[in-house]
């Protein structure tokens, strides 16, 4: 018996929950933010999230948990020379931002974060009472 087969996902992208009007005003306010690519894997033990944050060092990374919303923000620092004159750019913004809504099944107090080679790995365990368990049947 597992608890992760239900229709409701334990990790949701918050972006889908805001209305279009709000989204537009947000877009205006955060016009130079990038949405980093992320992978979400859910197992019976919890969720693992990988987020591509190239150019973000440990010091410029900010992970914040507010009620059930997990916010990841990171500034890009390329240490470019002062007299650099750009000739071609795929990456225009200098800032990544992404939000995830965590289900109450996950224990947000025990998030484990690991940043390596520009990839952030977040491990969020399922809270004990939501972990699948075996129920022993006693013979009467």
């Amino acid at each position, binding site marked *: 018996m597992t608890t992760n087969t239900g229709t409701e996902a334990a990790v949701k992208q918050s972006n889908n929950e805001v209305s279009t009007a709000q989204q537009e005003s947000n877009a205006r306010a955060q016009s*130079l933010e990038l*949405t980093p690519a992320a992978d979400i894997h859910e197992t019976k033990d919890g969720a693992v999230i990988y987020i591509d944050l190239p150019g973000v*060092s440990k010091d410029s990374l900010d992970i914040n948990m507010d009620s059930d919303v997990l916010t990841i923000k990171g500034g890009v620092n390329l240490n*470019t020379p002062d007299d650099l004159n*750009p000739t071609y*750019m795929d990456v225009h913004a200098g800032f990544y931002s992404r939000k995830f809504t965590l289900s109450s099944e996950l224990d947000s107090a025990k998030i484990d974060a690991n940043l390596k080679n520009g990839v952030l790995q977040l491990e969020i365990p399922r809270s004990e009472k939501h972990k699948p368990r075996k129920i022993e049947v006693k013979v009467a």
Partner: protein
Amino acid sequence: MISNMLRFSPSFFEGFDEVLAPEFARLTRESSRTRAYPQVNMGVTDKSVEVYLFTPGLEASELDVSIEKNLLSVSGERTKDDLDKNAINRRERFVGKFKRTVALPEDVDPDQTEAVYRDGVLHISVAKKAEVQPCQIEVKV
């Protein structure tokens, strides 16, 4: 069309026209997930050509960098994370082999190239040939 124009915008991390800003934000939001891997930023200084390749999730030893006839090529492979087969997965991040080639200006000296991989960004600096670098000429009295 607008996307193409923005790609060649000459300003690094600078503010944008008010009218374009929302449209730009929409483009960058979508594009960061759908664009080719790796993304590249390039620029020139008086003395060098600087190339930044956004290649997160690799080790420096897994990146293959070469210059041939003023074409700089970077290749490598991103592998899938080894995870529980029963996991529910949603994937946006690039997986597989990649190769990106950029044309360098004619006036560079490929023998003087430095490559540094830090925080998932490969920074390649190619020096310009000595004769094209600006130099101060002293005026004698």
